[in-house]
């Protein structure tokens, strides 16, 4: 597996792919178990998000080779999606507001 000095492509031992593959299976089973065991509330939601982020991280880092890339492309691809967190926060606030308004006017018959 000697890489030539100016080789541009990603080539890694097979073992790492099998390890990540196995981990993805384990994590998927765990997140399915959350539903089978019928966990509820904050425990359910936090477990779902933790397993999701771990799976997403492993796929991007190893299968998509991000850990081996130069920072220039890592930042160019991974920083812009952070803007989506702002959109998510805004829409969560907006959704709550809409829900409260609907409760007030549709469900309880309104104040006017």
């Amino acid at each position: 597996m000697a890489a030539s000095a100016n080789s541009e492509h990603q080539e890694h031992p097979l073992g790492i792919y099998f390890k990540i593959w196995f981990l993805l299976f384990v994590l998927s089973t765990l997140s399915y178990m959350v539903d089978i065991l019928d966990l509820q509330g904050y425990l359910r939601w936090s477990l779902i998000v933790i397993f999701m982020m771990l799976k997403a991280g492993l796929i991007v880092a190893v299968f998509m080779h991000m850990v081996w890339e130069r920072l220039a492309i890592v930042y160019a691809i991974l920083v812009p999606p952070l803007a989506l967190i702002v959109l998510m926060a805004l829409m969560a606030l907006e959704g709550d507001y809409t829900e409260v308004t609907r409760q007030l006017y549709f469900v309880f018959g309104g104040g006017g």
Partner: protein
Amino acid sequence: MSEADVTQSATPAGRPDGLQGVVADFASDQRAFKNVHWGKAMMWIFLLSDTFIFSSFLISYMTVRISTVVPWPFPSDVFALHMFGADIPLILIAIMTFILITSSGTMALAVNFGYRQDRKTTTILLIVTALLGASFVGMQVFEWSKLIHEGVRPWGNPFGAAQFGSTFFMITGFHGLHVSVGVLFLFIVARKVWRGDYDNERRGYFTSRKGTYDIVESMGLYWHFVDLVWVFIFAFFYLW
């Protein structure tokens, strides 16, 4: 795990690493993404835009689910299948998840064997990936027809909030379209690998550019992205 054993040096000769490297690469007045084939950089940028599309779908799903005053249908029950004399919650979705992860693994191996110029193994792995993807789409068709049969429509359903149907068909439909396009793409790349296009640098029909095994890696990025999106759909739509 020592990273030095795993990978070749990602640093081109004479270029700094870390933040200084980011500044140097973007300020170089040449190609910004050193060590990255142009096709791969373009695929990444396409996937970045696709990230925004899927995120917008998922965020609008979150918004309508928060704001509705009608109870949301319980996904465990809606997506349960009656097997072996009992209702097993989400079983089909779980099988689809495992199939997609398996196909992601075979795709990663295909990229690896491609760079080793192992034409036969690469072709077989690409075709296996495509068949797994096709079976995923098949199960999705089964799931859609089951739900449609039970009366789920984009404008309403018998289980609860009407928004359930619209977000379900929109999100899984768009993801299924991505998988279907990926399957076609995989068969095309598999044929090209088999024919030796990437060994002989045969020029592409549309682009007239020389074919290299980097195309298999770009294909891999797309396929892993489809799997990545499913991770988020599985978590937020089916499990939440």
